[in-house]
Structure formats: C-alpha cells, structure tokens
C-alpha cells in the first residue's frame, strides 16, 4: 500500500502533480491522492514531521518538544483534558439542541422528554452535565499548575491572559447553561445570581436588566441565555483555545521542568510530537472519556420540579462555582462581596505576569521555602477560614451587613489574618517577596475552596450553618 504507507516512495512527503506514476494510476487512486497528499501511516521520522506540519489540527502543535516536558506529573495533561471536555460538550450539546425548546412553556417538558423518551437521551444529558462540571475543576487545576510552575513569565505572559479569558468563557457557558432546564434549581439559582448584580454601585440595576433582558427572569432571559450558550460562547472558546494552543507551540512547548539550582538548558533534548506526545495525549483522553461516561451512567444530572416563580425553594443556592461568592455575601457588605473582592481578584490574576518579579519557571513552587510557605498557606486557609465563618455566625449572624460597621469589620479581620501570615513567613522562614506572594495566593485560594465547600455542604434552610447530613431533612 505505497499510497498510505510512508517510506521510499513519498520520502519528501509531498507527492507533486508531476509525479511519475500519475498516468498509470486509476481514478480512485488519483482521488485518494488529491485528498491525502502525503503518507497517512508514517514510516520514518521525516514522514512524522511532515504529517504534523501538514495536518490542519496537528499543526497547532509543535513538531518536536523537549523530552522532559513529556512527564505526566509535570502538566498532568490538564490543558489537553480541558480540550477533550470541550469537545465532549460540543458533541453532546449539538445532540441536545435537536430536542430542546428554548421557551418557558416548553423547555422543561423537552428536557423530561429527552430523558425519558429519547434513546440514550439521559446519558447524553448526563455526559454534558458532568463534562461541564469537570471542566470548571480541570480548568482551575490547570490554572493552578501553570501558576505553581511559573508558566506565566515571559514569553508566556499574554497566553496566561488568554487562559483567563478561556476560564471566563467556561464560567459563562456553565452559568447560561444552568438556566436552560427551567426547573426550580435553575430558575432560582439564576434569580439569586443575577440579583447579586443589584449591589454594584450606580450601574447595578442597569447590569441586572441587561443580564435578565428585563426586570424579571422571562422568556427573553431564556432565549438570551440559550443564544449565548449555544453560539457566542462556543465560538469564543474555539477562537481563544486555538490561540492558546498556537501560542504554546510558538514558545516551543510548556515550561521545562527542572530542580532547584539546575540551570535552564539552552538546547534541551527533543523528541517528536508524533508519536511521543500524541499517543500520551490520546491515552489521557481515552481515560478521561471513560471516567466521564462511567460517571454519567451511574450519576444522573439533577433536575428539580418545573420552575415556579411563586415558590422559592429553601435553601435557594447559586451554582456551586458561585457559592463561594454567595458565602461571602453572608459575611461582608454587599459591595465588598459582589464588586470589590471579585474585581480585585480578577485584576490581580490578569496583572500577575506583568508584576516586576524574579522569573523562576519550571520549578514547582519556586523553591524549598516556596513549597513550605505554600503548605503553610493551605493549612492556615483550611484552619482559619472555618473558624472565622463560625465566629462571624455566632457574633453577628443576624446583623444588617449593608449599614454600619458590621459588613466592613470582617474585611479588617481578614486583612489582619493576611498581614499576620505575611509577618510569620518573614520571621519564621525568611521567605523572599515572590514566595510570599505565592503563599498569599495559595492562602486565598484555599479560603475560597473552604467557602465553596461551606456553601455546598454546610448551608441548610435559610442559609443557616448545618451539618451536611442535616440538609436533606
């Protein structure tokens, strides 16, 4: 089969029109060669490079890459996993669009229809649901991995920002998709989340009107969310993901892992993308798809009763990835919780690559001191945050947060904890500035994890603090 096998005949890769054998070949052979202009099954390294370079999808990837970056525990394949999940979401999402009707009267019934009357309908919806939730987690872990290995330093600065934009699109996709089933869960989660916008000073009401397409959640909201969910966000994801991958290729792959004290290599040993990285990526993709499908077989995507604007469920919660903010709203002045903290966090993360900084890349958490102070950040975050939540609940559980000092005081306490933490790192570990910034980010992320866990499992009726096993009753 010389036409699909590489080797002697198509050594150069390209089979030109002046190829000698052209006249003798039949129509099918000529047709085949017009579609596949080179080898499909490569025989030599030259064929392999040719394939990567001349295949539309593969050419987003490098033809060769530093051997050390192959190690799974360096990247954990998180970026690739995100792509696999996005593709799964596209496939299952398109299937569901054939059944779903985006109108308040028909939406819920079309979902129950999909689940009960369409063969594999429930599996498709479950796969979409679990892929979407895994994607939020995997993308956040990917961000954490890049942060902790210093993958945002030059020349990768702008790709970090592109990654943040991708994370934003993923959250928008999740949020707009949450409303579509039009059940009690989705209706009230979106009501509460969009109601938070009212606390933005001056333009809050306007923002809320934009988000809802009116003063209340209506058919206009649903059609708006549906359009954003099924066209705007997928298009943005395709464009930005392509840019993201292409820029990784342009800087010759991800950061090269090294030990502390090891110099950055000028000419690292390289291996070919095909087969070394591609086979690993396909293996990770297969495992991930298997995990998602198994999860979808055994765990159903939640679906409450049909949306009833006259009856709020108790408790009414936002989607899990916004529960950290809903938890903040219980402790801080609304403007601090809804505007100040999210804006400060977003600005900080976007500015991170542009801060004047010692550039340490490829070393996990910069240094030994960095690792120890990072662990300290996790420990302090997981110990102090629950204590503060309980203390706030006991002292001012029913105070009016929007007036007086009660909403601002917690910010002072939090600032004091962070200041104490920084002071401790300086005195006890003599940590340099970069390691301290890293540890504070880890501390804040750990606190956010605690807040989210509290919101998901420890908030019962009337958003009172309860044990997880008491929520159902």
């Amino acid at each position, binding site marked *: 089969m010389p036409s699909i096998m590489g080797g002697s005949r198509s050594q150069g890769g390209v089979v030109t029109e002046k190829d000698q054998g052209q006249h003798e070949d039949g129509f099918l052979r000529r047709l085949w060669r017009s579609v596949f202009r080179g080898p499909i099954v490569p025989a030599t390294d030259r064929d392999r490079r040719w394939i990567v370079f001349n295949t539309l999808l593969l050419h987003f990837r490098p033809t060769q890459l530093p051997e050390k970056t192959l190690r799974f525990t360096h990247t954990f394949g998180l970026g690739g996993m995100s792509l696999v999940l996005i593709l799964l979401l596209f496939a299952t999402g398109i299937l569901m669009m054939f059944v779903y009707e985006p109108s308040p009267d028909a939406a819920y019934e079309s979902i129950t229809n999909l689940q009960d009357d369409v063969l594999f309908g429930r599996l498709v919806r479950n796969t979409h649901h679990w892929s979407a939730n895994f994607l939020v987690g995997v993308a956040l872990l990917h961000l954490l991995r890049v942060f902790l290995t210093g993958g945002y330093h030059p020349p990768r600065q702008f790709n970090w920002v592109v990654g943040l934009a991708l994370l934003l699109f993923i959250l928008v996709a999740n949020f707009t998709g949450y409303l579509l089933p039009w059940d009690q869960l989705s209706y009230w989660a979106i009501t509460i989340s*969009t*109601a938070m916008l009212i606390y933005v000073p001056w333009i809050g009401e306007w923002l809320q009107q934009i988000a809802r397409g009116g003063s209340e959640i209506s058919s*206009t909201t649903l059609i708006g969310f549906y359009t954003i969910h099924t066209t705007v966000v997928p298009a943005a994801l395709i464009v930005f993901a392509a840019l993201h991958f292409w820029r990784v290729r342009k800087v010759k792959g991800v950061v090269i892992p090294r030990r502390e004290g090891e110099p950055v290599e000028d000419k690292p040993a390289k291996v070919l993308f095909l087969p070394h990285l591609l086979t690993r990526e396909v293996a990770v993709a297969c495992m991930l798809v298997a995990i998602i499908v198994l999860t979808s077989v055994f765990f159903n995507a939640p679906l409450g009763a049909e949306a009833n604007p006259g009856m*709020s469920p*108790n408790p009414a919660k936002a989607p899990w990835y916004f529960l950290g903010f809903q938890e903040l709203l219980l402790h801080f002045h609304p403007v601090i919780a809804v505007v100040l903290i999210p804006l400060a966090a977003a600005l900080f993360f976007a500015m991170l690559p542009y801060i004047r900084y010692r550039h340490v890349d490829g070393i996990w958490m910069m240094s030994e001191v960095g690792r120890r102070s990072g662990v300290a950040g996790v420990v302090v975050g997981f110990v102090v945050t629950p204590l503060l939540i309980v203390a706030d609940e006991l002292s001012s559980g029913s105070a009016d947060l929007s007036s007086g000092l009660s909403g601002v005081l917690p910010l002072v306490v939090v600032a004091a904890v962070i200041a104490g933490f920084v002071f401790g790192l300086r005195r006890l570990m003599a940590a340099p500035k970069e390691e301290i910034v890293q540890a504070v980010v880890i501390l804040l992320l750990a606190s956010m994890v605690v807040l989210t866990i509290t919101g998901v499992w420890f908030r019962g009726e*009337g*958003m009172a603090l309860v044990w997880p096993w008491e929520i159902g009753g």
Partner: protein
Amino acid sequence: MTVQPGDQDATTRRSFLGRIWLWLGGLAILEGAWITAAILRPRKERPDADREEIVVAGPVDRFEVGSVTAFPTGKFYLTRVEDGGFLALSRRCTHLGCTVPWVAGEGRFICPCHASSFDLHGEVLSPPAPRALDLHPVRIENGVVKVDTGTTVTRDAFSSSQVTRP
C-alpha cells in the same frame, strides 16, 4: 509644492484617503455595536400603554383588619393594617429576589433563601434584606380595592403615608 514621500506632517492624497478609510472602518464598528445594543436592549411588552396593569382586588369589607391576602397572578400581597388602611406588598424579597411566603403562625413574611423577615407593613424585622418590601399603588374606587401592579414603588422603611385608607 513637492511632498517628500514619508514626510509625516504633509497630507498627501494617499494619506488623506487612508485616513478616510480608517474613519469609515471605525464608523462601521460603531454601527455594528449600535445594532447589537439595539437588539439586546430589553423590549417593552406594550410600548403605547402607560404600563398600568390594574388588578381588581375586591370590595373593602371583604378584607379583615390585620389580614394578608395573596394575589399570585399579580405577584403581590394585599394587607390591611391596624387603622383599616391597605398596602399592596410585592412578594419579591429585597435581598436577592426570592418569593417571600406569609407565615401565618408567626405573623410575618419569612424569606426561604436567607431568612429575612418582614412584618404586615413590609417593614424589615430581620436582615439581610436591606429595604422594606416594595409597594404597588392602591386605589379605592366606590368601595372596591384596586392595585396597579404596573408600577413598583421602592422604599427604605414603612411610613403611614404609604397606606391607602377607605
């Protein structure tokens, strides 16, 4: 007058046309943004009517003093306060917009979402709700109570001037 190619200050026909193209391009982007904004802008349901949606609640004597009557289609509660006057309270919690049910046993509205509670006048009894429940204007014509749900009045707290008396 001769113009040197590459002379920054002098306007040549070429640079003038180039600038015009740039402006036209900017104009096209603005037009696109305008069209997008026009389509995304919330549409009014009935543009010509003065947005009055009157709910006829019923004759005055049908409501006892101290009673709370729910009007699910109008999305409000009609309450009759101590002096015999009426208030039409929106059922939307002023905290995050959940629907507040009247808990007859405790004699107050309790929001299921964050446990805000309100009294018969819509006044906040316990936070996190920042304001008293919104009002709809009440009119009494020929002994019949009518509520205009097309208008919503926000207020910080209850005052007796908000009550409509027969």
